[in-house]
């Protein structure tokens, strides 16, 4: 079996993986960056909106433009990039199985950074298997990457930022969004994103749910019902909208398969999307030498993922001796400060608290490990 070796292997070339690879390579480490897709960038290239945050987080720059810059920096850095390549397994000795260029290879690295991202949640309802029902992320890929409009009249389920942003982008792509349906009594995402939709005449149905979708050959009609305060549909409250597409924006959950396989310890933190690997402030998991970054550590957003990636890249390079303790400490302090600025305010505070819970659980795991020794 062909052997591929590197000092640091980064799995996943989205915002977190790109930043991790770049930081580690710039510090001098030999880095291989692997992604199962034919194009790197993860979800960055479908983010056609301008990012929030501040200048240091590339605020005001559209996501795909950030992706283009990062890619150029990574390829200039001399990091090896393997695309269309799948890390399908990891052994207790941390050796990995890699399929690349049609060949089954053994991947060996002193440090591993897993930045595998997240996947969309699904919600079942009568008719939810009809053609025309899809994740909001899938619709976003269709319009912004593949330039295919999934339908003419869309019902969006979920009013978090993903639901709001993808609704806006569907309007920009030429579809009509006939409703944003949200079970909660309030809009989940940023008011300014909702405001764009309201100005475009999109109606919001808060405290409502899809009760069923029907049509002969795909979605043609969508029945919506009001929910009572216990989230039960109110009989007789149903009304029907004509639509050919239903987009589900009902949250994301971390893609943790590799991390589970590696034997890392987890915690269940709903605010971060479910089961998340424990990690310390260096992004190192309970398995020494295995780091995580981005949505796989808990679902947040691209700006935080980039910062976590940098953190993991710096820490892994430091562990290999490419950065002295002082230089690494300085870099990490800067990154943490930027992360904290993102995890603040009305929407960020909950994430900051959840990440603190995760770090505290890690602390306990490390302490009990010491006791065993």
């Amino acid at each position: 079996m062909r052997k591929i070796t590197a000092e640091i292997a980064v799995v996943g070339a989205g915002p977190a993986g790109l930043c991790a690879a770049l930081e580690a390579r710039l510090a001098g480490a030999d880095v291989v960056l692997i992604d199962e897709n034919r194009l790197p960038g993860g979800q960055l290239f479908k983010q056609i909106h301008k990012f929030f945050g501040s200048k240091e987080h590339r605020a005001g720059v559209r996501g795909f433009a950030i992706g283009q810059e990062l890619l150029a920096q990574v390829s200039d850095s001399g990091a090896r990039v393997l695309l269309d390549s799948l890390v399908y397994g990891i052994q207790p000795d941390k050796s990995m199985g890699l399929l690349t260029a049609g060949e089954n290879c053994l991947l060996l690295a002193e440090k591993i950074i897993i930045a595998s991202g997240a996947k969309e949640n699904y919600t079942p309802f009568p008719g939810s298997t009809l053609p025309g029902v899809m994740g909001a992320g899938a619709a976003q890929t269709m319009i912004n990457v593949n330039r295919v409009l999934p339908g003419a009249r869309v019902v969006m389920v979920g009013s978090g930022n993903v639901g709001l942003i993808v609704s806006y982008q569907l309007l920009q792509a030429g579809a009509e969004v006939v409703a944003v349906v949200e079970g909660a009594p309030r809009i989940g995402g940023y008011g300014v994103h909702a405001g764009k939709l309201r100005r475009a005449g999109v109606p919001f149905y808060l405290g409502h749910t899809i009760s069923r979708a029907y049509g002969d050959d795909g979605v043609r009609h969508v029945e919506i019902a009001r929910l009572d305060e216990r989230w039960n549909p109110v009989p007789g409250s149903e009304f029907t909208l004509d639509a050919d597409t239903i987009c589900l924006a009902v949250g994301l959950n971390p893609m943790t398969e590799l991390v589970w396989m590696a034997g890392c310890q987890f915690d269940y933190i709903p605010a971060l999307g479910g089961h998340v690997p424990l990690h310390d402030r260096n992004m190192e998991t309970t398995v020494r030498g295995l780091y995580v970054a981005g949505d796989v550590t808990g679902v947040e957003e691209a700006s935080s993922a980039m910062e976590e990636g940098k953190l993991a890249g710096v820490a892994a390079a430091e562990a290999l001796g490419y950065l002295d303790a002082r230089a690494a400490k300085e870099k990490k302090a800067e990154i943490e400060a930027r992360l904290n600025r993102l995890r603040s305010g009305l929407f960020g505070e909950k994430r900051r608290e959840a990440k603190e819970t995760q770090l505290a659980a890690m602390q306990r795991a490390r302490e009990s490990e010491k006791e065993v020794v």
Partner: protein
Amino acid sequence: MPEGVVYTGIPSREELAACPGIPTEARMARGRVAVIECVQEIPCNPCESACRFGAIEIGEQLTALPRLDGEKCTGCGLCVALCPGLAITIVDKSFSATESTVDFPFEYLPLPGEGDTVDACSRAGETVCPARVVAVKKSPAYAGTAVVSIRVPTAFADEVRTMRRLPRREEDI
């Protein structure tokens, strides 16, 4: 339905009244000025960095609401294009004896042409009145967002925040 941005996507009258980004009536009457309808504490400050005149202040706390200094604001409009939330307009109530202009970000194709008549719309997307397009500004500095300026009767200047999207033409697809 209860009022307020989390229930409607539209800042309520009270939220706007308490918003530090809204200039005074007197300032709007004097000429072009930014109207920053940012009422939620989100970590974001491109408006502050965009302003060359130091008229928008957020400060160290990234989630603080932007505070407008109406005396420093020249109404140049760079912040209109750079706000990721598309929450800023430029209002000029001195445009004529009866009319005001409203400049707003517009990210839909096709763009209107100068001199066209369009439907001026409210924060809720309702048609308020017909309006004449005064200018359509596109600049590399705007990073892909066009800024459309329309003139409306001054009585509607606080209500109009956008225009109705135009039907798509074959060549835009």
